[in-house]
């Protein structure tokens, strides 16, 4: 009976095998060439196989040696932090830097367990003023400060 005894090694191995075999599979479409005249498929195929082999070692080790459980922790910070960045990326060109900064700071602040509205709002306003001064006027980045319909 096989079971996962070292989940960190086991799943890292699964991840490597998945990446390695996918990369190898895709590289099959690229010309291989010969060692002396390498095609674009030569190096990636080799790497894909090496990665899959390393993954296999980890999977086997993960079933033999004992190890700690994976502590995934709360999903809340993960989703909120990454989500608020996606939101910023999607709206910054349309809403401008001021509004998207306020949006990013307010949404991402809620990821902390010590979240407080008042402090977050003050910090959002200060940072919005600072980044507009520093990046739009100071460094002259190609970012609009105000929403498209207002500028």
């Amino acid at each position: 009976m096989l079971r996962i005894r070292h989940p960190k090694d086991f799943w890292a191995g699964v991840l490597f095998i998945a990446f390695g075999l996918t990369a190898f599979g895709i590289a099959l479409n690229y010309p291989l060439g010969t060692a002396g005249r390498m095609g674009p498929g030569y190096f990636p195929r080799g790497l894909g196989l090496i990665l899959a082999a390393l993954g296999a070692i980890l999977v086997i080790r993960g079933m033999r040696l004992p190890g700690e459980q994976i502590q995934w922790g709360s999903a809340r910070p993960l989703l909120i932090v990454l989500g608020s960045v996606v939101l910023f990326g999607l709206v910054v060109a349309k809403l401008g830097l001021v509004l998207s900064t306020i949006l990013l700071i307010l949404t991402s602040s809620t990821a902390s367990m010590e979240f407080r509205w008042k402090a977050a709002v003050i910090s959002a306003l200060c940072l919005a003023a600072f980044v507009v001064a520093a990046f739009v006027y100071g460094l002259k980045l190609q970012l609009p400060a105000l929403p498209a319909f207002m500028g």
Partner: protein
Amino acid sequence: MELFDNLAIGFQVAFSLQNLFYAFFGVLLGTLIGVLPGIGPVPTIAMLLPITYTLPPVAALIMLAGIYYGAQYGGSTTAILVNLPGESSSVVTCIDGHQMARQGRAGTALSIAAIGSFIAGCFATLLVAAFAPPLAEMALKFGPAEYFSLMILGLIAAVVLASGSLVKAIGMIVLGLMLGIIGTDVNSGLQRYSFGIPELSDGIGFVAVAMGVFGFAEIIINLQHTGVREIFTKNVSGLWLKWKDFKEALPAILRGTGIGSVLGILPGGGALLSAFASYTIEKKMAKDPSRFGKGAIQGVAGPESANNAGAQASFIPLLTLGIPPNAVMALMVGAMTIHSIQPGPQVMTSNPQLFWGLIVSMWIGNLMLVVLNLPLIGIWVKLLQVPYRLLYPAILLFCCIGVYSIQNNVFDVLMTVLFGLLGWIFVKLECEPAPLLLGFILGPMMEENLRRALLLSRGDPTVFLTRPLSAVMLVMAALLLLIIVAPSIRKKREEAFQEPQEAV
């Protein structure tokens, strides 16, 4: 003396008003992010890379270098006062530094850390100046076979010296190499792994990888932990060192400087490893090892000197061979390519102003850092009282603006989020992200040199062994692997990394 002529060029460049300003800005920012736990030099440099487009190359590199060694100074402040490593390389400083603070000797600990770092910085600057030219001369004779073997050696050394599982670390390198070849193949013009997405035809931006894997993932991890911080800020006094303290610490400073200089040059080395090694050695050398962990001044002086020497010495492989020995140097490669400077032995001859200016700026930067960190310590202490819940949204914001402004493109932001997620998974699975970034930077170079080497040898793979320099490097790489697999040494290596960590 050629060395002095060269240094004279360097002083001319580094003392221009503009470069002094950027060196100051770099070390200031470095100290800032060093003091703040939860953001390190890698995401900071990644964040600033897009902005350096507009600067002259010398100013850009001087600033970015300042961030790296500046962070080594700032990191010790947090380690001593809060018992948190402001910078990963200050982990060991927490042990004795924080104990000193508890005994009311915070001022002494801070001073010895800064003075040790300064001595180490001066020495390492001289070392770079002295060793870089002969190394670069040797590297000029390298062919593609030597370069390929050198990269193998560098990557292997990087994982051998790192902590954690060897198989995982090699896997992370290979994964990084594969991510590095995404985009248009230079030889055939074929698009590899771009899945028909036009933004991927130039490859993944390393800013997205570095910021996602190091910056975002770190923030998420920090938010998942909750801990109480205990800050010793009230009694920072007595910054003037007593002669007795200095005399006690000096040998440790000198040893730390030596260790840092040697380990910094090695691929995979740099600040973190040097600090660990120095602490272990100081403990071994001490007449009374039991004082360590209870506020031994050597336990602060040694590692703090070592991490600064290591940080600066790691510029040697970058500037002479074009091979980045750690993640920060990998980003410096990026910074140089932005300004279309190909890192490698030719930099010194084709761009002497840049090369020597950068080196001299390090010495000036160290001088500025002593001033920034000792008399102005009060400002940094204040900064430590800013709670993390206000800090991380601001870090996120600067990351977002940095990534977005590379090409004014949402795609890069989304890639960073993807790598943030990947980075978080890697941390949970105990896969170290630094080798991934190294592989990512070296991927295209490695493929190109492998190709050329085998083209020249008409497909004969023995070329790597018949060319003597290449063979030596491969044998060294193989020996390193063998050593690490050998059980007895493996145990020692684990101990060396375990010991200081457990004591924190």
